[in-house]
């Protein structure tokens, strides 16, 4: 497939034509190729999500690799890292290879499985990290996400052992004893609503411990979904000391606050919980100054019945892939805190670097893999279920006006989204296997 994109604006503000042939950017293409007039559109490097829940195998009623890949593509993503909390857990070679090959078969995005740190996510003994690293799936990111590796000794060993294979531990920082039965951010509002509090210190104390452990054993640590102003301070301090720590923030923690819990609408129930205004402002500032390295969605689809109930009974988690770009646009680009090249860094180059994913270090350069998305920043839309492409409906943005719209996405040189709509699954799979 060859593609010609005319008159597009690159993240650095320059305008040019882009040509794609045989999976990579080239100088020119012959006529007869797919042609997109990109007047008014911005070309962004293919977005990379370091934190996605694809749910397959085991929870196919929530999402599958195919449906999650489609949700990713319509959101402008060309690669996603699939969290390990499947059933069976992604803690053996067989499961990570299965997830990897499902991604390859469908072809909408590059699917990179994340391996569990501990067997069965049970937090008791290490999983077969070496085997997963050396498997066909070449796992480099390990996480018990959904659970915190709370045992200090086990976390130390995990950091050291993963270092042996050149990988990184992505920690879900949540002190379990401080969050027994926790339902929402602990503070004045949780006190009023009578919902068990989820104190900021439960996150901050684990991050503080982990950065010290990472420093001590000279290993890389990645902190998942940072949600509090205090966590930002701890990470800033650790980076100043030279600790090899990176951190992510979700789109929803950049835009939404705990006030949304007031109506007990469980679409707003998420782990970590939505926090206060001052946390949101601190997270935006930290993303702008580089203390927080990347945005990752924590896309967490759930079936309707898991949310159609009382708050305490509802599952944690919200959709993120389809809305991420628009939400980050609304939260930090519209305000001028990040420009488009910053956005390209936090949603593409840097997450690829953390996850050791090749092909994202020189976007748009001749010879680089053609992974990019065309975004119309001037569009606005009232976000609705019709904007969703995965199985889940649990988006916190339904009914909210969001800026921007993905017009096209190109993965490894072939289109996955054209004219704002997904390319047919069979056509995408066919292109994927030609390449």
């Amino acid at each position: 497939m060859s593609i010609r994109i005319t008159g597009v604006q690159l993240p650095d503000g320059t305008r040019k034509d882009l040509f794609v042939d045989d999976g990579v950017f080239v100088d020119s293409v012959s006529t007869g190729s797919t042609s997109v007039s990109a007047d008014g559109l911005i070309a962004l490097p293919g977005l990379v999500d370091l934190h996605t829940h694809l749910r397959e195998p085991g929870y196919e009623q929530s999402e599958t690799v195919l449906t999650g890949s489609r949700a990713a593509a319509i959101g402008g993503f060309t690669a996603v890292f699939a969290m390990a909390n499947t059933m069976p857990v992604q803690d053996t070679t067989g499961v990570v290879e299965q997830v990897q090959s499902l991604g390859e078969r469908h072809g909408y995005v590059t699917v990179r499985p994340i391996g569990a740190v501990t067997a069965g996510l049970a937090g008791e003994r290490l999983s077969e990290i070496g085997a997963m690293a050396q498997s066909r799936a070449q796992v480099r990111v390990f996480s018990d996400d959904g659970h915190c590796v709370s045992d200090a000794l086990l976390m130390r060993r995990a950091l050291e052992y993963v270092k042996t294979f050149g990988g990184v531990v992505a920690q879900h920082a949540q002190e379990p004893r401080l969050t027994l039965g926790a339902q929402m951010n602990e503070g004045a509002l949780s006190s009023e609503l009578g919902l068990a509090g989820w104190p900021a210190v439960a996150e901050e104390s684990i991050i503080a411990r982990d950065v010290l452990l990472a420093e001590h054993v000279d290993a890389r640590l990645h902190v998942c979904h940072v949600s509090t102003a205090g966590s930002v301070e701890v990470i800033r301090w650790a980076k100043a000391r030279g600790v090899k720590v990176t951190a992510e923030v979700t789109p929803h923690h950049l835009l939404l606050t705990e006030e949304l819990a007031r109506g007990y609408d469980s679409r707003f129930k998420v782990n970590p919980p939505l926090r206060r205004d001052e946390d949101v402002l601190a997270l935006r500032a930290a993303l702008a100054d580089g203390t927080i390295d990347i945005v990752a969605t924590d896309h967490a689809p759930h079936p309707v019945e898991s949310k159609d109930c009382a708050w305490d009974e509802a599952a944690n988690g919200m959709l993120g892939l389809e809305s991420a770009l628009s939400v980050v646009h609304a939260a930090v680009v519209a305000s001028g805190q990040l420009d488009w090249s910053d956005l390209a860094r936090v949603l593409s180059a840097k997450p690829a670097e953390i996850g050791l994913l090749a092909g994202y270090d020189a976007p748009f350069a001749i010879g680089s893999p053609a992974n990019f998305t065309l975004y119309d920043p001037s569009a606005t839309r009232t976000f609705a279920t019709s904007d969703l492409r995965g199985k889940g409906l649990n988006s916190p943005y339904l009914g909210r006006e969001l800026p921007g719209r993905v017009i096209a996405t190109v993965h490894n040189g072939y289109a996955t989204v054209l004219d704002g709509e997904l390319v047919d699954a069979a056509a995408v799979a066919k292109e994927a296997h030609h390449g």
Partner: protein
Amino acid sequence: MRHLLSTKDLSRDEAVAILDIAEDMAGVADREVKKLPALRGKTVVNLFFEDSTRTRVSFEVAAKRLSADVINFSAKGSSVSKGESLKDTAQTLAAMGADAVVIRHSASGAPRVLADSGWIDAGIVNAGDGTHEHPTQALLDAFTIRRRLHGPDARGKALDGVTVTIVGDILHSRVARSNVWLLTTLGATVSLVAPATLLPVSTAGWPVGVSYDLDAAIDAGPDVVMMLRIQAERMNAAFFPNAREYSRQWGLDDERAARLPAASIVMHPGPMNRGLEISANAADSPQSTVLEQVANGVSIRMAVLYHLMSGSDA
């Protein structure tokens, strides 16, 4: 008023109006035939996801005295299942034509979810949701205080200038939350006394004073002391060391009860742990309103059901 979900939603005038209707309802209990035809042909469902015989019976008596048909629907889950879902139950009741649903649920906000869901069109009465609110308990407490203070002249009055001290497990108490909003709306001054472990981490925005010292609170001579029930399981979760220490520091024992002004009243929402948060003497003294609270509960629940069901859609 379509639902009663939280006392925070009640205006002063609405609250006084409900208390006044309850005065009328109290008169019914003194008649030979304890029944009014007000809600004849209407169906009230007591939907209890959590056991509470006292509250359920109180609502049942209230609805029956108003001639409503009453259905008790116990939807409590067994130890192996999560029980019937809120949604399925609500849709079932809607299909059966319930006019009002009195709901008790272990999850905070469940009545609000039901009211906002569109699953059912009935009026919703919160009969206690998790650690959130218990509005009819607060209304009956306000009613009890008002009757004690003003006797037969209570009608139309609020609780201006009344000082109320609420003691105990504020953190987990839906009774405390509902009373904080309602009593202050009615003009009372409310203070909370508990160990720091049993107070919410933040009471910013609550119109109350907070302290740890029960003796100082007693010596301030409050008009009302309201003791909250202590659940045994709190001891196992390190909220306080043991019952003996709790009782010594935050229990209304004989000595503390004796130091209260003679006109002060002692309240407890029941069921009591005699000897733990309240001594037997204090519970049974003339200052105690424990049994009046139970009797007034029926009047208040009649008033609430009447107000909801014969009001706007009549």
